């Protein structure tokens, strides 16, 4: 379980996170929803120790993040995390060199699924294909938790479908996923849990299935209620 407890963060004088708390379980897809600039990306960076927090605590399976944790949790940001001049095959080699949890068979499988050529240079890929490679580098790690920042932004409809397909496949099963988005439509039917965020605070945290059963509302219904009401 990933536990985010009362996390506060300032950028200069601006308070970006005002005491955010939520949890994300293994085997569930947790979606952080909020408009741009509410601190979704900052939360993910804070979980990965890529930006300092002013107060609060973040625990992964009960412990603070350590170097060994990076075999268990990975972050897929919205930009490619490999040097542009690398070929896809070289990026694979790099991952295999450093991560014990790198799964080369799965990488090949994903390569075919996304219809990518491993001899292509990252610099020459289209935006959609770059996003796919980026996603592939995270998905081919045998980690327990995946953090994905806006996996659908700026990507054409067919690539979106392909990426959405990944969520229903065995590639995601059993893992804990935290995903941020401001376009819920593509993945509404996939997510287990929603954390609505606005202005650095959690407005509501709910289980999609429960709300659907008990209140008969969809995610969008709840969002409308929370943001407009």
């Amino acid at each position, binding site marked *: 379980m990933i536990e985010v407890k009362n996390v506060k963060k300032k950028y200069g004088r601006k308070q970006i996170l005002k005491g955010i708390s939520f949890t994300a379980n293994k085997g569930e897809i947790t979606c952080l929803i909020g408009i741009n600039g509410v601190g979704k990306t900052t939360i993910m960076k804070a979980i990965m120790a*890529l930006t300092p927090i002013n107060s609060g605590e973040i625990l992964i399976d009960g412990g603070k993040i350590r170097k060994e*944790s990076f075999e268990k949790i*990975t972050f897929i940001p919205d930009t490619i*995390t490999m*040097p542009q001049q690398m070929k896809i095959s070289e990026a694979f080699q790099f991952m295999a060199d450093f*991560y014990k949890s790198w799964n080369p068979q799965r990488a090949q499988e994903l390569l075919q699924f996304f219809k990518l050529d491993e001899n292509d240079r990252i610099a020459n890929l289209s935006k959609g294909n770059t996003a796919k490679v980026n996603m592939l580098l995270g998905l081919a790690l045998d980690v327990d938790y995946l953090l994905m920042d806006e996996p659908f932004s700026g990507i054409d409809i067919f690539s979106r479908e392909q990426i959405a397909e990944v969520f229903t496949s065995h590639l995601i099963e059993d893992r804990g996923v935290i995903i941020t988005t401001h376009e819920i439509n593509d993945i509404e039917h996939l997510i287990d849990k929603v954390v609505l965020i606005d202005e650095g605070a959690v407005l509501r945290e709910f289980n999609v299935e429960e709300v659907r059963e008990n209140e008969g509302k969809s995610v969008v219904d709840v969002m409308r209620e929370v943001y407009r009401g």
Partner: protein
Amino acid sequence: MKNYLKLVHFEVNRFFKMYLIVVGLVIVSQLIGAVVESKEYLKNIKRTLLREQYSFSEYLQEGYQAEPFSQFLNSGWVILSVFMCVVILMLYVFFIWYREWFAKNTFIYRLLTLPTSRLTIYFAKLTAIMLLVFGFIALQIILLPIEHQLVYWIIPADYRIDILLTEAFNFVSLGGLYPSTFIEFILLYGIGLMFVAVLFTAILFERSYRLKGIFFAIVYSVLSCVVFISPVVLHFVSEGYFYPLEILSLLLVTGAIVLGCAIWLATYLLKYKITV
């Protein structure tokens, strides 16, 4: 350790193409320089003979011969090429960090989430810089005898005063890059290593605190310099109370302190303060 070596290999590889281009430029400019300077030297002799209406034996008696190899070493061909290497490496000290943040990719995300200590990245980059420095120095060691031969091959023995190759290594234009004793080696390259480590930590200050970080970086760098050279200041203040060897020992101590602090601060910044 294994990850450290892999990262060093990776870092060196990334700069290697650019490095080879610079190496090529140095070789070409110095070899062309050796030829051009030698021809120029011969032309000058001819001019002198004509102007003074000397015969060659008179020319020799008047002691007009010079040291063409020294002249070559002091020429722009050598000085500028050495200077170019220094400038490029200085720039690369900064670029080796900033390239991870800027341009289209954000490789820093990957580097900082490798399942290895973040200090390993710092050491790998530090090692890469030192290897590139040693590479240039080795290149110059190889080039000097070739140029020495080339100059003396173009200019006949009677027209010149020879200098030994070993003397060439002490030339100012080579910036005293070639220490003659082990202590000097440690001192020279130890200072170099410390200098790069301090710059790296200063860069990490900027990367951690951004605008405020620039201020911290400057204060930190100045403090490091002050601590390091304090024995020299002491030497002047005490008007020679200490023996040179004692000052040297003190410099080794303050140098070790500065290097230690740089690494300790880098550990802290990379672990708790770095912002991508």
